[in-house]
């Protein structure tokens, strides 16, 4: 499954109501580390249909970023059944993200 860009309008449907676990990547265009993490996230998204990986641009979606109290990006939040279950701040290597998705 491809990486999905989520906005305030699609957040409820794509994240809160998702039956699969959702890994949210809070990022911004000007954030270098976020850009470097992108290939890993795309590869993870393409690798399996068991979970969803979504991107939220914090510049466009400040409300969502504030709701999640994001103060550093990239910030990766794992959601299950509409609830946050874990979170990692900063660039993470693929095995760490895989472990997060399994956990």
């Amino acid at each position, binding site marked *: 499954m491809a990486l999905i860009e989520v906005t305030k309008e699609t957040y409820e449907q794509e994240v809160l109501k998702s039956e699969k676990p959702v890994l949210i990547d809070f990022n*911004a265009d*000007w*954030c*270098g*580390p*976020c*850009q*470097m*993490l992108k*290939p*890993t996230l795309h590869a993870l998204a393409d690798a399996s249909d068991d979970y969803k990986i979504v991107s939220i641009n*914090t*510049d466009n979606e400040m409300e969502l*970023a504030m709701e999640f*109290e*994001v*103060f*550093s*990006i990239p*910030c990766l939040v794992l959601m299950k059944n509409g609830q946050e279950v874990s*979170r990692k*701040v*900063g*660039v*993470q*290597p*693929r*095995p760490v993200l895989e472990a997060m998705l399994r956990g």
Partner: protein
Amino acid sequence: MYDIIIVGGGPAGLTAAIYARRAKKDVLLLEALACGGQIVNAHNIENYPAEAHISGAEFATKLYEQVVAFGAEIRYERAVEVKDHGNYKEVVTPYGSYTGKTVILATGFENRKLGVEGEDSLVGRGISYCATCDGNFFRNRTVAVVGGGDNALEDTLYLADLVSKVYLIYRRDSFPGEEETEKLLKERDNVEFVLNSKVTKLIAEKRLTGVEVADKEGNVRELEISGLFVAVGKIPENQNFASLIDLDEAGYAIASENCRTKVPGLFVAGDNRVKQLRQLVTATADGAVAATEAIKYIASVN
């Protein structure tokens, strides 16, 4: 067995991969986090030949894509040890181990931590090591920067444009960083210098709400802040290889311009090497030199 294992995917390591692949060598590049290295945090690069303006992330992305196009294998694993087996080397990661005829250590720097209790758990909850990444989340709030070098001064200047107030906390009374930046900071109404002072305590509930600072006389003061930007320097990432190579007092790998270490077949390239000038252009130059030396070494032992 690989011809060349490169440890680190910053500008030095990526450039080494390009040179090695152009010489048709089998290359494995191990990167602990994501490719790009420190340069991805650079807002705007203006001093790289033939690139008048480019962001660090864009530069890193182009370099990464060039390496992928040349067919280097990249794995996202942290090298925790290098073993010298004479005519080959073994690189150990938490996920396995890889053998190569040569190894290039291009591990660069990592941010030095402040070393105050609770720091790790507050990263992303008020503590940041990257003002350009995270400054935006602190708009109209009060923050502090710790440190006195170029990075600390530049971070303070960058933040002063975004936030309502910045405290600049430094343990001495004069800054080793750029005088020009210091002058600009003094002109800002919303920058307050907290000198001769150290952060002694992080105050937090769910997230950072303040810090306690103590000056040389022992006076303690509490600053109410929602963000603390740590810019207290960087340390070369050579600790995992200290048993094999020589390090200087500051932890830099000792190797001359030919990037050779005392172990034949083991090279070091980029910011983690002893050198006069640490810039993008000298990192890429090291990558080219180290790869060329590795290729020469392989030819000489075969």
